[in-house]
């Protein structure tokens, strides 16, 4: 393996991680855009999502010793797992909003944000107590197809992660840009009171933001499992913090920004790990978080002026 091959391989890895962080970052951004709330429960919605994906795969007969699937069966299992995971995670997000956050809607200050930290710990501990501390083998229905590019390898799982993320991000962009509810979401993010006076039910927009963001986090949980071949109660914090950094880097509240930030963070993790050492990757990523917050709080694509104009 030449040095070029090594970097090519890290580029492939970085884009896959980046796609996953982007999906996760979108959830932070959608909720922040509307409520100006940093939802730390999102970290562990992602983690629960990966367990839901694991359960769904088992349900569809995908176990560690089962033979890989192909063709229609593979497509059906993947789509089924993705659908179940996204719907379940989306509903979890909505339940968190309705039960824990809605009662605090008109409370000023950090109460709601602190509550999301509490909810995050509840999810964390429920999974820990319910399923144990050992990491779980995440079976993959994918055949071991791999395309050698020089000395680097492009595996089917990476291609799948790219395609699924691209499709989901394109669908979200289309939804926010062109549908009636999407326009209502953007209007509410820009001026909630004026949006309300257009007849928009702001409460429904909030539910929708939690549903979509959490559903995407669930999809990210499935990607995580397919990429690392395991899941554990602990995966939410690292991935969540990196995705949060991605959202801030792109400009929190900004949808394309979250996607861009995710890809950049994924690449930094892979390349930085290669250039320096893996243990430095987080130092670099969180230094970026601090630097962005200090010098460019609006992020790469965010507006310099805060939300309202």
């Amino acid at each position: 393996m030449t040095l070029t091959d090594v970097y090519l391989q890290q580029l492939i890895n970085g884009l896959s991680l980046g796609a996953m962080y982007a999906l996760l970052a979108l959830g932070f951004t959608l909720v922040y855009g509307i409520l100006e709330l940093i939802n730390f429960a999102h970290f562990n919605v992602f983690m629960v999502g990966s367990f839901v994906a694991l359960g769904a795969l088992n349900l569809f007969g995908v176990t560690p010793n089962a033979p890989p699937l192909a063709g229609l069966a593979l497509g059906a299992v993947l789509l089924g797992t993705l659908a179940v995971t996204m719907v379940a995670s989306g509903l979890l997000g909505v339940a968190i909003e309705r039960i824990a956050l809605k009662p605090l809607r008109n409370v000023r200050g950090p109460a709601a944000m602190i509550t999301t930290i509490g909810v995050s710990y509840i999810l964390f501990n429920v999974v820990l107590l319910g399923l144990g501390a050992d990491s779980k083998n995440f079976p993959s229905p994918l055949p071991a197809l791999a395309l050698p590019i020089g000395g680097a390898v492009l595996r089917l799982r990476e291609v799948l992660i790219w395609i699924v993320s691209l499709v989901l991000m394109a669908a979200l962009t289309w939804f926010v840009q062109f549908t009636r509810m999407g326009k209502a979401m953007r209007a509410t993010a820009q001026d909630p009171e004026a949006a309300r006076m257009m007849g928009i039910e702001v409460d429904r927009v909030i539910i929708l933001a939690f549903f979509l963001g959490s559903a995407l986090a669930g999809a990210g949980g499935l990607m995580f499992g397919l990429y690392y071949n395991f899941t554990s109660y602990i995966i939410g914090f690292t991935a969540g913090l990196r995705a949060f950094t991605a959202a801030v880097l792109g400009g929190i509240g900004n949808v394309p920004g979250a996607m861009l930030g995710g890809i950049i963070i994924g690449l930094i993790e892979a390349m930085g790990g290669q250039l320096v050492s893996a243990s430095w990757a987080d130092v670099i990523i969180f230094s970026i978080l601090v630097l962005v917050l200090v010098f460019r709080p609006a992020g790469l694509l965010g507006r310099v002026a805060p939300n309202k104009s």
Partner: protein
Amino acid sequence: MQRELGLLLEFRGVNTHYGDLHVLKDVSYEIGRGEIVALLGGNACGKSTTMKTIMGVVRPTSGSVIFEGQPIERLRTAERVKRGIAPVLEARRLFPRMTVLENLELGAYTRKRGPELAEDLERVYELFPRMKERRGQIAGTLSGGEQQMVAIGRALMARPRLICMDEPSMGLSPLLVEQVFDIIQQINRQGTTIFMVEQNAAMALSIAHRAYVLQTGQVVLSGEAAKLRENPAIREAYLGELQVSAAA
């Protein structure tokens, strides 16, 4: 004269509070179908609060708001919009990062989609030909006058029976103020009732049929606009001031 057609909107003994701050104090208004009614008053006397109370963003602590004969003070804002009340908000309040067309579409948010919407859009473009050219432009990049046109167009897209305007002349040049008031009159002639908050008392009284004067949350004067224009107290308090500021 218009009042013969009956009342469209009524406040009966309305009180509103923001926490301990008592803003509207036992206020009553009567807006007849087809009228232009102006609400005059100095800063912080409760004019915008009146508009927000009509839209349901502020709830009265007591008293009743009646629209087309039915109490609406407990209805959600969206329901009021559906019944035919549309706002032109203070300082425009367009959605700054959406296009002109998207802003106009949001005005029709509660209506069913169909050919009628396209017709109404054409009607708005007829009233504001410039908006048609600018329909793809981001609203936040328009000039103040253009933004006011979009804000009025956005209200029309709701096909309202009543438009509540909060200081439509704010921040506009005298020429634009004149244009905006012309348009308001035109909209009214086509059958839409208008309840309008204004600091520009001279202009407001020149197109309004009737007016109310609010002072620290209480109605202190009301009547025909033509009579109020002659009222010495009004001339001193509002019209005189205005001539000075217009000359400056």
